[in-house]
């Protein structure tokens, strides 16, 4: 199941996405300001999680691997399922989300898109050209993820 609205034509055209690891640079007379991709990734991840109906981010493998890396202290659940491409003035965001059963997927996807754009643009000053939302799974209340079951032992 996927709700992917915007095309990746802009990326192909090179308008977005420098693989430098640092985007959002702004020069002023008193010095330059740079915002790392990690900041944009984290802001987008937090913004997606703020939306009601979103249970988690990341695909099944990413969540399982993320749970493992978090237990040894090297992972961050807030960045799993989030991929960003950041240019000088623009950013594109890809999200993989798990939505709670019973929610309207198009509405939740639209709310995620709107909140991610609002947060990323407000905080970083970058213009968000696209937010692609892939709905990877549904969460049923009462479902326990294997990672949770292990940590309660």
């Amino acid at each position, binding site marked *: 199941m996927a709700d992917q609205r915007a095309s990746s034509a802009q990326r192909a055209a090179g308008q977005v996405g420098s693989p430098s690891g*640092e985007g*959002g640079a*702004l020069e*002023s007379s*008193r*010095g*330059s*300001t*740079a*915002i*790392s991709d*990690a*900041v944009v990734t*984290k*802001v987008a*991840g*937090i913004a997606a*999680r*703020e939306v009601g109906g*979103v*249970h*988690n981010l990341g695909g099944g493998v990413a969540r399982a691997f993320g749970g493992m890396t978090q237990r040894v202290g090297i992972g961050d*659940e*807030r960045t799993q399922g989030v991929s960003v491409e950041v240019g000088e003035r623009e950013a594109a965001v890809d999200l993989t989300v798990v939505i*709670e059963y019973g929610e309207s997927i198009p509405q939740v996807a639209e709310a995620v898109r709107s909140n991610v754009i609002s947060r990323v643009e*407000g*905080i*970083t*000053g970058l213009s968000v050209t696209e937010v692609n939302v892939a709905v990877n799974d549904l969460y049923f209340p009462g479902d326990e993820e294997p990672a949770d079951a292990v940590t309660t032992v």
Partner: protein
Amino acid sequence: MSTARPGPGPTPLAAPSRRAQLARLAREAALATVGVAGASAGPQGRFATGDRGEVLAGVLATARRDAAFDLELNLIVSWPAPPLHSLAEAVRERVVTAAGRAGLGDVLGPIGISFADVLEPAGLGGPGP
């Protein structure tokens, strides 16, 4: 009769260089700015300045030809994050003021600021119950 001469004794700590003074005050000014949660030396320790055996993480002061120093700060932002370009200007303002008070305003060059990460309180943003 012998004349007692004072021994060498402990060597007094040398005064900090202007570069180290500037780096320290810039780091302190940045950390005192609302919205800044910390400073990081970065993955390769690029943003760090030595001061008499101490490492000031998150700030790099580099000498210029005109005897001034470029400053680079690598900062971690708290959540909820403010608009980062405004935050960068607020940090610069504080650094300029602090350098002026310390009599180092004449050696203060451009202040580069990079935001490396976002720090949020534990539990925020996690998956729902």
